[in-house]
């Protein structure tokens, strides 16, 4: 590992995924890059090490369901789905374009591997409860992973779903919270404080664990021993950095959603990532 890699704490795969995210974002000319960058290690560990799926049979009834409820983080999802062969990589070049496959929020029925259309926040958890209950009715062993943003859990519907998951003791269900501490307007602490966040999830009936959401080994360790507790849904609070890995974007609100940027700026960011890999 080179010096620069050590400094930002990311390995070659994490850097490569970030490069693809930035390239895709640049093709589309707009998007939520910083919201995707905080998700990279979470999505990577899920798709590399945890989820059971078959890109050749995306509707396989026994697949694990991974539902990106914070749909605006879709650049991270798309890059992983392309990497795994759910659709050809060249589709990434048409991100947000007319005639392209991939929009600014993921769409069910359009993109293989997308389990539900998300983008309006707070919808994923209840859909996930439905998925998890279906597994119980049909006696299937699949698991349901719902990935939430921290701003997203301002929505009351998230907590309605948490009540429901707790009531039904859905230990096949995992809420993953990308806790990057920043939402669109400003820091979570000032817009709508969430602390004590772990206590909230516990109070709603979940078994809770907090992890460094950029530590691949920590995520692998936690996500490979689910459920945390039998008879309870799991909540994994991932402490992350918005824009992780790109100096200009880290905790920089102007990159939450971006359009009209200078392509040279993105090229410079990509080039620095490549230097890290050298």
């Amino acid at each position, binding site marked *: 590992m080179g010096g620069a890699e050590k400094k930002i704490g990311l390995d070659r795969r994490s850097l490569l995924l970030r490069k693809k995210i930035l390239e895709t974002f640049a093709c589309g000319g707009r998007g939520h890059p910083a919201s995707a960058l905080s998700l990279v290690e979470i999505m990577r560990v899920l798709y590399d090490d945890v989820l059971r799926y078959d890109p050749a049979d995306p509707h396989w*009834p026994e697949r694990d369901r991974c539902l990106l409820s914070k749909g605006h983080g879709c650049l991270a999802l798309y890059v992983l789905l392309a990497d795994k062969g759910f659709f050809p990589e060249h589709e990434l070049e048409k991100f947000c374009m007319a005639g392209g496959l991939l929009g600014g929020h993921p769409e*069910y*029925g359009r993109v293989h591997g997308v*389990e*539900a*259309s998300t983008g*309006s926040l*707070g*919808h994923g*958890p*209840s*859909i*996930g*409860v*439905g*998925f*998890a*209950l*279906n597994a*119980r*009715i*049909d006696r299937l062993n699949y698991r349901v992973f719902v990935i939430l943003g921290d701003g997203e859990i301002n929505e*009351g*519907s998230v907590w*309605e*779903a948490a*009540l*429901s998951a707790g009531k039904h003791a859905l230990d096949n269900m995992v809420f993953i919270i990308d806790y990057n501490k920043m939402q669109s307007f400003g820091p979570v602490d000032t817009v709508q404080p969430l602390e004590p966040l772990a206590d909230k999830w516990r109070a709603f009936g979940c078994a809770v664990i907090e992890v460094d959401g950029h530590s691949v080994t920590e995520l692998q360790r936690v996500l490979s021993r689910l459920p945390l507790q039998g008879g309870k849904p799991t909540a994994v609070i991932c402490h992350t950095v918005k824009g992780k890995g790109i100096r200009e974007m880290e905790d920089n609100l102007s990159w939450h959603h971006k359009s009209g940027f200078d392509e040279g700026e993105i090229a410079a960011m990509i080039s620095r990532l490549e230097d890290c890999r050298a």
Partner: protein
Amino acid sequence: MRKTCLDMVHKLAVQDPRIVFIGSDLGHGTLADFARQIPERFFMEGISEANVIGMASGLALCGKIVYVNTIASFLTRRCFEQIVLDLCLHKARVRLIGNGGGMVYAPLGPTHETVEDLAVMRALPNMTVVAPADADEMKRLMPQTVDYPGPIYIRLAKGYDPIVSADSPPFQIGRGMVVRSGTGALLITTGITLKIAMQAADLLERNNISCTILHLPTIKPLDHEAILRCAGQVGAIVTVEEHSIIGGLGGAVAEVIAEADFSSPKRFKRLGLPDIFPDDYGSQSGLLKRYGLTPEHVAATVRSLL
């Protein structure tokens, strides 16, 4: 009508393992036999409409056919975005059964009455909207809801309605039914207003005005062909609905008629609630009278147009 509808859900669920029921916080004992017989497919999820709709969507995306039941006002208003996105956008096979559509809950006031549900549901892509006239029509509708594509909104009216519907021609979602044929005027109904129109037609008959009654239990997809066929033969058309005159049956029919190319001009009137929230209590029949949804007023309206 409500009991018939829910009994049908139970009956269908016994026959079909794909069928799931979700209620919010319904009256004690609702579908107790279903809950006892098939507990794994019976859910009572509390006062959380957004969650109920999302959960129903999740189950439907896994191949289940989900019947959701609560009061129509809460079912269509509180969780509107979940209906739009989780159900319509996903073409999820979820059947929304709205209790007390219209002014059934007259004593409880505007929070519980639903006079815009048909308009709101009709505007959504992929949504089907049905308002049966009575329990018999409900019984004919329900088996057809099982394999019908996409979400369906089923408006329940007041129970114990007199049975006025007939199964001729056979009930079919999306098909209008000519209940009576005449040449003087066309009355178009949905839900419980079929009965009002039938009585109005009897009154008009005494004035030697014969009416066609076209009953449209399905508001969407609307039977354009039946509307145009019936409207072409008369000089006056009146729609009758227990709903705002904006965007419901009258609005839908107006859209069809306005774009039609009739050989002779037509007079047209929508009867329903004006653009207000119901502004009195009492009973459903009292409010129907207050807003002119009576046989006498329908007949007078027809006479004024001819």
